[in-house]
């Protein structure tokens, strides 16, 4: 079943086409990677899906329903959550409070405070940060802040999770644990769509990869196909 579908999605900033005519779809349960050179329009595409930006034209459907034009909080309540390329945590609040807010406001039916706290603690453990419960979010290392953001997104009970460069700045070993985390998320039945530059991660974890360049989709396929695609090698992977 298609959980997300975009048809002829275009986004212009003045005369500049950030995303021009992209068709894409994501099936439920997949882990799909989104790669492309810097400036290709990947984060812009995420912004169009999550409601931060409205497409200039084109339609985006989530679980069969049109979501173009809806505000982010409405899209979140329908089951789509995301993390940000530059972490946007609530810095002066504790790690637990950050996740708690996701629980309290993000789920479709709203949550009782007692249950929300319990769930948030579980999520903290899920991402491996139980020790940081009472720390202020702004005091964490960048890698840990990204984990908190993932936990906060998961707290809203999403069916589709958008991850924007979650692995940037991690050592290869840390990338390994992040890959494990994403697989765990996938095994919970959550569909994952991730932007990444860390090739090892994308190739290992993705079922399918979409490649953007200058705002257009130039390739799509399973990791092996993409890794050997000459155009992709030329503009993105290098030799």
């Amino acid at each position: 079943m298609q959980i997300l579908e975009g048809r002829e999605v275009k986004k212009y900033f003045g005369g500049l086409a950030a995303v021009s005519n992209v068709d894409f779809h994501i099936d439920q349960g997949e882990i799909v990677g989104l790669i492309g050179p810097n400036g290709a329009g990947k984060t812009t595409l995420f912004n169009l899906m999550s409601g931060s930006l409205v497409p200039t034209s084109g339609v985006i459907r989530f679980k069969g329903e049109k979501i173009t034009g809806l505000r982010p909080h409405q899209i979140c309540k329908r089951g789509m959550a995301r993390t940000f390329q530059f972490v946007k945590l609530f810095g002066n609040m504790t790690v637990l409070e950050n996740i708690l807010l996701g629980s309290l406001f993000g789920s479709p039916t709203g949550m009782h405070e007692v249950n929300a706290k319990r769930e948030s603690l579980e999520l903290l453990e899920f991402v491996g940060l139980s020790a940081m419960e009472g720390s202020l979010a702004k005091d964490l290392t960048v890698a840990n802040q990204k984990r908190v953001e993932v936990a906060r997104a998961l707290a809203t009970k999403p069916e589709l999770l958008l991850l924007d460069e979650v692995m940037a700045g991690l050592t290869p070993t840390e990338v390994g644990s992040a890959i494990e985390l994403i697989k765990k998320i996938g095994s919970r039945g959550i569909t994952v769509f991730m932007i990444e530059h860390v090739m090892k991660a994308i190739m290992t974890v993705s079922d399918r990869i979409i490649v953007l360049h200058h705002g257009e989709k130039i390739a799509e396929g399973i990791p092996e196909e993409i890794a050997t695609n000459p155009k992709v090698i030329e503009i993105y992977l290098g030799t």
Partner: protein
Amino acid sequence: MRRTISKKIFYLMLFSLIFILMVIMPSYVSPYTIILLNSIFMYIILTVSWALFSGPTHYLSLASAAFFGLGIYVSAILGDKLPLLVVIGLGGLISFLLALLVGLSSLRLRGMYFTIFTFGLSELIRHSVQWWEVNKTGTVGRWVVAVDHMTVYYVMLGILLITLVVAYLIRHSKYGLALLSIGESEEAAEHIGININAMKMITFAISTFFMGATGAIMATRWSYIDPSIAFNPLFSFMPVLMAIFGGVGNIFGQILGAGVLTLLADVLLTKFPYYYMLLYGMILVVVVLFLPKGLTGLKEEVKRWREGGSVNPVRKDGPRPE
């Protein structure tokens, strides 16, 4: 939450004690004290209700005078036609409705733009009312039905109690947390399901309800009002100053700031009638310079001073560790 249960009960009892004291006090003190207390109550209400919205969200509103003044005018126009409590309720309600309208147009503005917009709005309302009064109604000012100072006192105490209770309940609820998150990162808040526009508008409107109600009752003390009295920009600036002075982050700080500054102004006015403005300003500057977190930050600052200051201070926040 953060305090243990016993501490909560202690504060609750202390608060109730003070409240009871306030209730029986008027029979035992001079009228002058009652009038002074009225002033203090007024500024506490204005400061706490201003900080209700502007504190956590960092949307600094300079429109408090507009809503306060609106309440004053409701009182002036309807004071002789309707019972007192209804007038006060209407003062609050009309402010609430105006705030919703204002919110619709202005809450997409960020930071400084929002602040300047609210200030401009306040002035616009002042001039509009003035124009209307002069050209349509044929008056400059109005007389307000007088009410004895004891009644005013008890009404103010009632409004104060309600304001404090509402402020406390909001702050310690999930909505309080959500408001804080809006101040930290609106985009993130929106993406975890918080309807930021609705939340901003409603909280802003709630804060103005108390301002309007207070205006309605204070008008009866002044008996003569005109647009420059009712919509005096000082009623927009003072709550901000008082909150910063006492400590914006918590209700106690806001109460302290409003109380201390109002008392200070009164004391200075009587003791140094010629220099009081100068002294007042100097004290404000000195406190904000050395206690950026306001009076409630005093404990922290003393502790820091005792420990010899932090090693390696570059800027207050410093670069983040990796």
